[in-house]
C-alpha cells in the first residue's frame, strides 16, 4: 500500500528549484529558415524594358 506524503515546505522548495532550473536554461529557438530574393514582377520587368527601349531609341536618333 502506498501513502501519499504532502509536505508543503518540500513542495515549495521543489517548485522553487524547478523555477530556477527553467530560468537557468533558456530553450534555444530551434528552426531552419530558408529565404531567397523574389524576382521582380512582370510589370516591373515590362517597365524596365520600356525604359531601356526608350534610351536605345534616343541613342539612335542622337537625342539627349
Amino acid at each position: 500500500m502506498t501513502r501519499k506524503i504532502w509536505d508543503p515546505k518540500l513542495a515549495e522548495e521543489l517548485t522553487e528549484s524547478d523555477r530556477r532550473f527553467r530560468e537557468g536554461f533558456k530553450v534555444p529557438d530551434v528552426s531552419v529558415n530558408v529565404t531567397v530574393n523574389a524576382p521582380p514582377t512582370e510589370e516591373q520587368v515590362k517597365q524596365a524594358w520600356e525604359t531601356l527601349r526608350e534610351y536605345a531609341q534616343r541613342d539612335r536618333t542622337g537625342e539627349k
Partner: protein
Amino acid sequence: MPANVRLEVTLPKKPLVDTKRLLRGLGRAVDDTTAIAESNFKATVKTWRRKPRFVRRKATRKGKAIEGDVTTLDEIYGYVTGGTRRHVIRPRRGRLLAFRGGKYRAKTRRRVLGSRGGGATGGLRFAKQVMHPGTEAREFQQEIAARRRRNLHNFVVRAWAEARK
C-alpha cells in the same frame, strides 16, 4: 588616320527571363530545401522513444523574399541541440530520484545528422539529488542550415536556368 566608330544599343525583342516561371522555380527551390531539412531533423530523432514534432512551412512570398522554414517547439529537443550547463536534479513529486546506474550511451553526436541505439543501462539506483554534468550542444540546426545553404544555391541556379527563354 582617325577612325569613326559608332556604338549602338541593340535590345533583344523580349525579356530574357520568364519571371512567372522564375518565381515558381524559386518557390520550388525553397520547398525542396525545407523538405530535406525536415528529413534531416527527423533523422536526428530516429531512435528516440518520444519523438518531437517538426513543423514545415511551405514557401510563401513576403515582400521581396520567398520564405519557408522547419521548426520545433519541443523543449527536450531544444536542450539536446542547444546543450545544458551542469545542474542539480531534485525529485519533483516523490522524495527520491530513481535512475539506472550503469554506463550511459548517448544516441546522438555533435553535428551528426543521425541517431543510433543507446540510452541508460544497469540496475536501478536511488538518490536524493544528483549533479547532472550537462549536455554537449549537438548543434543540429546549425549543421542542417550549413548543409542546406550549399544545396539551396544549386536549386536557385537551376531555377534561373529553367526560366531563361
